[in-house]
């Protein structure tokens, strides 16, 4: 983006150069002997031309002469770099997921460098942070809790079926309700059954009496149907509009499916209307508690609600189930309404929604289910790394607040010492929105005043950081425009609070609200680069809204992956994608852009200076072939290769030190200061080239046989110095010299020499001028030319080297420190190895002792929860000398996997 601004600057430079030269030309020409000396007369038509027309032509001619300062080839190179560079992403083995056989997908290569600039990450919870691999955990019917006791170690044991009742067996009416509940779960879904003989890798259900596979767009439904199967009710199939279920006594029950009121994320519930074999018509509804409870007219609401809330706190996904019995009359009414709505030509959606609203009411609450969705592996590690990298992570989810908060704790978005600020409907009901917002901002800002925000220690334990929880309803209140125009105020206040929170959790969000919040941040006054990551169709709006959209190739179909800019198999891959690939891409592209401007300044500025010595006659300094090929072949490949291969720090270091990401944050390498530095370097070099050659050539003899050189030799000398300097400058900037780099850099210099020898070595029959004939060879035969070339190259490279060394020595950035350290470390590798070995086993053992304990506990949610909170995830001690930290990895890579990533 800043590239375009720079281009405008260069365009201005170009135009002003051309203007200056045109004006000077006419000033200089005002004396006739200069304009048209006897030895150099104009043709008749030239003489007759109108003065203004002539001036304009001259202006255009200068524009043409200097147009190379606008690096047109940069666009080509940038595009190529982006396109080819994106292959490295898809090729990355570490980002390949063995389980699904999916690697990362790059749908657009335009945003590669933005990956290194991310300031906000908006992530979905289900399927993104969690695996979206649902497991039925328990159900609660009328306050009685049922747990399929077969769940041990997170695995389903196949040999036992049945239910384990925690509470005492319910009475008669309870029994009836219980059966109804199971049937409801069996019937109220859109699961399809696939027979076992066509297995294609999908989850196979061993438990069923008839083995079959359930397929559904929502994993929750599959989990529920499977869970119910373990509790004795098996859904067999949908045949001729009859749903067949096998009840606990192995009897086949048939229900006629009359109507499906399908799920949508606004209603957050779905219903079916079925007719049992006895002729009763039931409406079964399941959905989020918030959408069910208001519609319930009887049932043990309080008991179920408390159970639901408890489950939510433990991070389980809860659904409530309710039913109502319809009389035939009611049903026909409902059917009529539905029919009308479905046939409506206009506003069908809206009408349908209204009808659903009418039908789905006066429920009798049956119970609730709880489904566990486990965290993805290394989700916590990834989030922690992102936060260390200075990226703000927001979790946007449609789940309940308690569920979401628990997940956030589990994935370390919130730490134990994080002070949670709540901005929820409940709170707003107590106070007014206004007061709540002001209170929160006061809390945040007071803290802020005492501590500077940009201290490096954003994560140290002594610093208080804030987490904000906000729900959809509160958000819409904030976003809602007010009559008195104070909405902007709220919005600002909200943004101010968000900016000071290290983590934000938004729950109960509708898909559009997700996009809304992304937009809000995107358009806030710092214009941060946002990234949205999600897996489901409900994340698409947010993915499209954010600067960079990333889809998880997950279970809820590929819709998100298709609409995203990048798709990755797992959330954990985001870490490498941003911290390593993004960082690399950004460093590469910024150097590429700056270098392109630099080399074109170097190229054209001598041309500009030459105009002062050739009577402003637009005489080119270089031969046409050089002018054409400079950007195309002499200097293009090394920088393109740099743009593909450069690794200023090794990928492992970047992964290990997320804080390095801060070094490139906020477009640090393409700021004006850097741009001006490069431009001035270019101008300086150009002045050195030109005046170096000028003093070398001016009125003296530079050959040992006394013969003289002409203007083309002069230009060739400048050009040779130019090509060498510009290429060597890149060589100085390259930190990662593979054989390809060597080949390209030395190869392009060799190509220049060979080309020049060839270009000047033959009388080219198709050219009508032979001005370059033997010019290059003659130049090489002259001693002073060689000496001059060496001298000028040295002088033009000197300031840059000096600047680099001094900056590194006196004001090193974190990246440079790491570079120094890793270099230091490579030299003294043996010294640190013992230390490294001492450190690593400890990590390993702690990791090992963790995992079995966790597994054995996993059937008891309560315990697991405490376990989550109990284990002290010590932030990896960055305290012990960084040098041995780096050395350890170089000493033994095999430890880094187990040692550095404490997975949950």
């Amino acid at each position, binding site marked *: 983006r800043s590239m375009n601004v720079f281009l405008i600057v260069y365009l201005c430079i170009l135009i002003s150069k051309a203007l200056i030269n045109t004006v000077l030309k006419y000033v200089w020409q005002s004396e006739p002997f200069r304009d048209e000396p006897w030895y*150099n007369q104009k043709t008749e038509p030239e003489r007759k031309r109108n003065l203004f027309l002539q001036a304009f032509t001259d202006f255009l001619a200068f524009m043409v002469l200097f147009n190379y300062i606008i690096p047109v080839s940069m666009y080509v190179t940038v595009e190529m770099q982006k396109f080819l560079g994106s292959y490295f992403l898809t090729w990355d083995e570490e980002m390949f997921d063995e389980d699904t056989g999916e690697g990362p997908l790059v749908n657009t290569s335009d945003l590669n460098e933005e990956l290194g600039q991310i300031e906000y990450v908006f992530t979905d919870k289900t399927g993104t942070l969690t695996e979206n691999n649902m497991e039925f955990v328990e159900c609660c019917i009328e306050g009685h809790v049922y747990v399929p006791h077969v769940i041990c170690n997170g695995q389903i044991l196949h040999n036992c079926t049945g239910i384990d009742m925690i509470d005492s067996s319910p009475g008669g009416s309870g029994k009836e309700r219980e059966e109804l509940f199971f049937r409801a779960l069996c019937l109220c879904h859109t699961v399809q059954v696939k027979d076992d003989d066509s297995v294609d890798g999908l989850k196979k259900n061993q438990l069923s009496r008839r083995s079959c596979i359930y397929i559904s767009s929502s994993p929750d439904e599959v989990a529920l149907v499977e869970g119910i199967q373990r509790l004795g009710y098996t859904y067999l199939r949908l045949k001729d509009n009859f749903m067949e279920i096998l009840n606990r006594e192995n009897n086949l029950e048939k229900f006629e499916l009359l109507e499906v009121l399908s799920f949508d994320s606004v209603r957050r519930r779905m219903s079916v209307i079925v007719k049992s074999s006895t002729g009763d018509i039931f409406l079964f509804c399941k959905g989020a508690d918030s959408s069910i409870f208001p519609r319930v007219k009887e049932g043990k609401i309080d008991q179920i609600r408390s159970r639901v809330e408890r489950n939510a706190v433990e991070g389980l996904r809860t659904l409530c189930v309710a039913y109502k019995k319809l009389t035939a009359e009611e049903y026909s009414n409902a059917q009529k309404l539905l029919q009308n709505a479905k046939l409506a030509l206009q506003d069908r959606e809206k009408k349908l929604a209204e009808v659903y609203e009418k039908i789905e009411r006066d429920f009798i609450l049956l119970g609730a289910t709880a489904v566990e969705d486990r965290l993805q592996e290394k989700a916590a590690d990834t989030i922690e790394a992102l936060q260390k990298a200075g990226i703000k992570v927001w979790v946007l989810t449609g789940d309940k607040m308690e569920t979401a908060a628990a997940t956030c704790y589990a994935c370390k978005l919130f730490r134990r010492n994080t002070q949670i600020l709540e901005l929820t409907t409940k709170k707003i009901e107590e106070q007014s929105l206004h007061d709540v917002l002001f209170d929160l901002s006061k809390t945040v800002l007071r803290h802020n005043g005492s501590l500077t925000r940009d201290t490096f220690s954003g994560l140290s334990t002594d610093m208080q950081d804030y987490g904000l929880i906000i729900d959809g309803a509160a958000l819409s209140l904030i976003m809602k425009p007010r009559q008195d125009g104070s909405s902007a105020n709220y919005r600002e206040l909200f943004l101010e609070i968000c900016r000071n929170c290290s983590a934000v959790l938004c729950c109960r969000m509708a898909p559009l609200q997700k996009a809304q919040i992304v937009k809000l941040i995107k358009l806030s006054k710092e214009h941060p680069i946002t990234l949205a990551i999600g897996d489901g169709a409900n994340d698409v709006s947010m993915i499209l809204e954010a600067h960079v959209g990333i889809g998880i190739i997950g279970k809820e179909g590929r819709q998100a992956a298709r609409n995203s800019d990048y798709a990755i198999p797992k959330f954990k891959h985001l870490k490498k994608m941003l911290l390593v690939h993004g960082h690399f891409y950004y460093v590469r592209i910024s150097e590429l852009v700056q270098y392109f401007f630099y080399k074109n300044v170097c190229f054209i500025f001598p041309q500009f200076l030459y105009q002062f010595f050739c009577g402003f006659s637009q005489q080119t300094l270089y031969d046409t072939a050089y002018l054409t090929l400079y950007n195309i072949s002499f200097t293009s490949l090394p920088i393109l290769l740099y743009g593909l291969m450069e690794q200023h720090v090794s990928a492992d270091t970047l992964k290990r030190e997320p804080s390095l990401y801060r070094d490139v944050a906020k477009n640090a390498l393409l700021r004006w200061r850097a741009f001006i530095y490069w431009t001035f370097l270019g101008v300086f070099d150009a002045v050195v080239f030109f005046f170096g050659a000028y003093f070398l050539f001016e*009125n003296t*003899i530079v050959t040992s*046989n006394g013969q003289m050189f002409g203007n083309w030799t002069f230009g060739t000398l400048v050009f040779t110095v130019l090509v060498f300097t510009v290429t060597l400058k890149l060589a100085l900037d390259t930190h990662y010299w593979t054989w390809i780099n060597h080949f390209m850099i030395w190869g392009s210099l060799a190509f220049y020499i060979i080309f020049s020898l060839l270009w000047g070595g033959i009388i080219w029959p198709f050219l009508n001028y032979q001005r370059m004939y033997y010019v290059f060879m003659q130049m090489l035969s002259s001693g002073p030319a060689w000496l001059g070339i060496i001298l000028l190259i040295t002088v033009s490279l000197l300031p840059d080297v000096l600047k680099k060394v001094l900056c*590194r020595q006196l004001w090193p950035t974190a990246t440079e420190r790491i570079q120094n350290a890793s270099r230091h470390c490579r030299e003294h590798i043996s010294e640190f190895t013992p230390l490294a070995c001492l450190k690593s086993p400890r990590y390993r053992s702690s990791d090992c002792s963790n995992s079995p304990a966790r597994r054995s506990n996993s059937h008891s949610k309560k315990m697991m929860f405490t376990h989550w909170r109990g284990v002290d995830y010590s932030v990896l001690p960055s305290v012990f000398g960084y040098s041995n930290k780096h050395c350890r990895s170089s000493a033994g890579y095999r430890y880094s996997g187990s040692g550095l990533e404490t997975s949950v």
Partner: protein
Amino acid sequence: KTRKPDNTAFKQQRLPAWQPILTAGTVLPAFFVIGLIFIPIGIGIFVTSNNIREYEIDYTGTEPSSPCNKCLNVSWDSTPPCTCTINFTLEHSFESNVFMYYGLSNFYQNHRRYVKSRDDSQLNGDNGSLLNPSKECEPYRTNEDKPIAPCGAIANSMFNDTLELYRIDNDTRTPITLIKKGIAWWTDKNVKFRNPTGDGNNLTALFQGTTKPVNWPKPVYMLDSEPDNNGFINEDFIVWMRTAALPTFRKLYRLIERKNNLQPTLQAGKYSLDIAYNYPVHSFDGRKRMILSTISWMGGKNPFLGIAYITVGSICFFLGVVLLIIHHKYGNRNTSADIPN
């Protein structure tokens, strides 16, 4: 089919690489080495340059006292040519071969209109271009409906002063032999410039159908009496055709070879320069000079290169010292300190 990427070093960006970092430690020796190399080279060049003898006379004649003042406003076709003689004294003898140059100032041979005003294929002996010169030659392309050979502004304005050098020994003028061959690039004379081909070697016949450049007194085939220095391959002509880079330039005119090892080429003493003053430069404020110079391996007198080398070498050395100090003063901080977190 598995989509698993190949585990090659290239695809995983894990190619073995040399990872140099520019630190004070690594750059220090380089600075010292550059300093140590450049300073001696610079001194060498400087000394060589100082040993070169060079003598320069401005014979434009703008000052009233100058003998050439009378010729200041000559035109192209003044016959007989205006002549003038300038006496001068060489303080030091010129030991080795002496090169005689003419120099022009304020003459824009690098003007775009001028530079392109030539036809290289005509000069290369192409018969088609001889009779139909390139359009680039305008307005010096045709004269009285005949094609000009050689066409173009460069050829038209060829330098045509004649310089002769005499040594004055006890009032006797002994002419000094001026060699007019070997002043142009060998490749120019033998490859790039060629006379038109045809039956026989009679240049007059070969240039049939063309006319001389407007400003020339004689046609191109009468530039010299020797056939291998006549027509397009006349060396004075070739030298002129190589356009100079800057408005102040010199061009090689004649060579003075050393006769024997006992005597210097040009002894110290009195000399006189006879000029057939044909070339008008006063109209554009130009200057004309005659330069006598000896040549070393590195060409003529040029103090710039030597001084530049010495300066750059010293700066590098100085920077090396500064960096050494910085390295020592701040070096410890960098190797022991770590990232604050």
